[in-house]
């Protein structure tokens, strides 16, 4: 469980994370989504205490990360930037981390096998490909058998097989009751693994929701209707919770709040001919773009008010 309360990070006059509140719960994969520069990595660095918050707090299982007596047992983290000495072998790197917690050699061998690094474990990590580097980072994250796994852009640089492996790993970890927190700037990737989504833009939380809800919010329940009697159809469909829009003079209407089936039946009952009846499916990607675009507009509008 990760809890952020009014978490803020400023670098000079640039605000990277701006009063963020969220809770990441165990037993589910929570996606941390936002465009590049939204403050995802900074937030994750604050969770494990690499950066100190300018204001606000973030706790892991009720305490600040540094207050735990066995930090690697609380959170296993893979950060976006490489966090290894290139001159050290993968095995030695893991051993160095294991020693700090008194974790044995057997466990190191085990995470090496889990991440498929057996063949290269004795090679210098500096010679690793991006994908192997990611696997080593994940091996380090799993080392302490952590309650919470936090991965920053884990699929970066992985081949399709590696991407599939990560997905299976993440859902497996969540199924074991662990807290899984994964960042990405790719909505399509998140849609496949995340149960819950925290969307950020410009350092603020834009949405804290489930995948389905996000699609719904973004207009996923809109139906496009084309008819030769738009005015008649408007009269027939009008009711509580129903919104109808369309350009004057156009035969096309957009209806929200009614399923396509109800619209078709109502039109048939009143003898109104329909040429098209399409439930508009909004892809997660579109929903995400819509959200982050709004955040940009919000900031732009703010500037205008300030100027006036």
């Amino acid at each position: 469980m990760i809890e952020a309360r009014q978490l803020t990070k400023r670098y000079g006059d640039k605000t990277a994370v701006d009063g963020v509140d969220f809770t990441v719960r165990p037993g589910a994969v929570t996606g941390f989504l936002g465009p590049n520069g939204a403050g995802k990595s900074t937030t994750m660095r604050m969770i494990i205490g690499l950066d100190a918050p300018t204001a606000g707090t973030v706790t892991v299982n009720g305490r600040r990360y540094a207050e735990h007596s066995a930090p690697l047992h609380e959170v296993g983290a893979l950060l976006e930037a490489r966090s290894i000495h290139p001159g050290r072998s993968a095995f030695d790197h893991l051993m160095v981390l294991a020693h700090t917690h008194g974790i044995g050699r057997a466990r190191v061998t085990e995470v090496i096998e889990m991440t498929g690094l057996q063949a290269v474990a004795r090679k210098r990590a500096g010679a690793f490909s991006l994908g192997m580097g990611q696997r080593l980072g994940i091996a380090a994250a799993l080392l302490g058998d952590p309650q919470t796994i936090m991965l920053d852009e884990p699929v970066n640089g992985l081949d399709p097989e590696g991407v599939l492996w990560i997905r299976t790993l993440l859902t497996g970890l969540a199924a074991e009751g662990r807290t899984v927190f994964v960042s990405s700037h790719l909505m399509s990737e998140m849609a496949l693994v995340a149960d819950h989504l925290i969307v950020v833009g410009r350092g603020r939380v834009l949405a804290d929701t489930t995948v389905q809800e996000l699609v719904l919010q973004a207009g996923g329940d809109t139906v496009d209707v084309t008819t030769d009697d738009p005015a008649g159809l408007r009269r027939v469909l009008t009711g509580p919770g129903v919104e109808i829009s369309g350009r004057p003079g156009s035969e096309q209407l957009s209806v929200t709040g009614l399923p396509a089936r109800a619209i078709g039946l109502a039109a048939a009952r009143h003898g109104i001919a329909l040429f098209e009846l399409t439930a508009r499916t909004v892809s997660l990607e579109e929903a995400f773009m819509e959200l982050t675009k709004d955040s940009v507009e919000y900031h732009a509008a703010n500037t205008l008010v300030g100027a006036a």
Partner: protein
Amino acid sequence: MSTLATRVRPVRTTGPRVARSEWAKLWSLRSTWITLGLGLLFLVVVGTIAALQYRSSANSGQPMDPDFAGATTYSLALFGVTFSLIAFGVLGVLTAAGEYTTGMIRSTLAAVPKRLPVLWAKAAVYGALAFVTGAAGALLAFVVSSAVLSSTSVAMSLSDAGVLRGLLGVGVYLGLVGVIGVALGSLLRSTAGGISAVVGAFLLVPGLMSLLPKSWRADLTPYLPSNAGESIFALQHSTGSLSAGAGLLVLLGWTALALAGAAYRLKKADA
């Protein structure tokens, strides 16, 4: 699917465990072997060459080279201390600053988020290693040089007064240089910066003292890290220099100062 098959035994970070990790860090890098080997080589080889030079000069029947005036087996054997000091200091810097230049520091501090134990462990583990290597190198240099010089007028043996204590003092000096290297590397977070700082403090500043007014020079010079360090292992103490004990105290003061700066930055600044 069970992703984390073995339940890891109850784990906890402790000071000795962090030290164990720092020990493993040192020996898993090739640079440690190379630099430590160089430090040892400088001590023994330079001392041996100095002893051989002295012997051939003494045996030639010509007037003694003025560089060798007042030389003893002890001083000739330890001719290489200044050179090996650079190797020990540089390795200290690499040990600490290398964490930042490679990004390893993020893994290190994720495992030990209280941070300061990492600095103490690094300083203690590397300081101890530099002490042992330095003392062993000094001993070896003395044994070889005394064999070379056994037939000359400056012959000395290990049992002579103060020799063993002095050779141990060389280890103490090089150990503290190593710790100062760790502190400066950690403080500056840059390999180049840290090495410059070590070289500057131990090799350049003494030379710059000649720019000071004469009265200040005499008062300040004994307290420089290099002069204080040399008085720890000097057999004869001239009037202007500190005693071994005072030299040790002064160098410990410099070490504490560097460590305090490193600790402050480690604790306060984002990694």
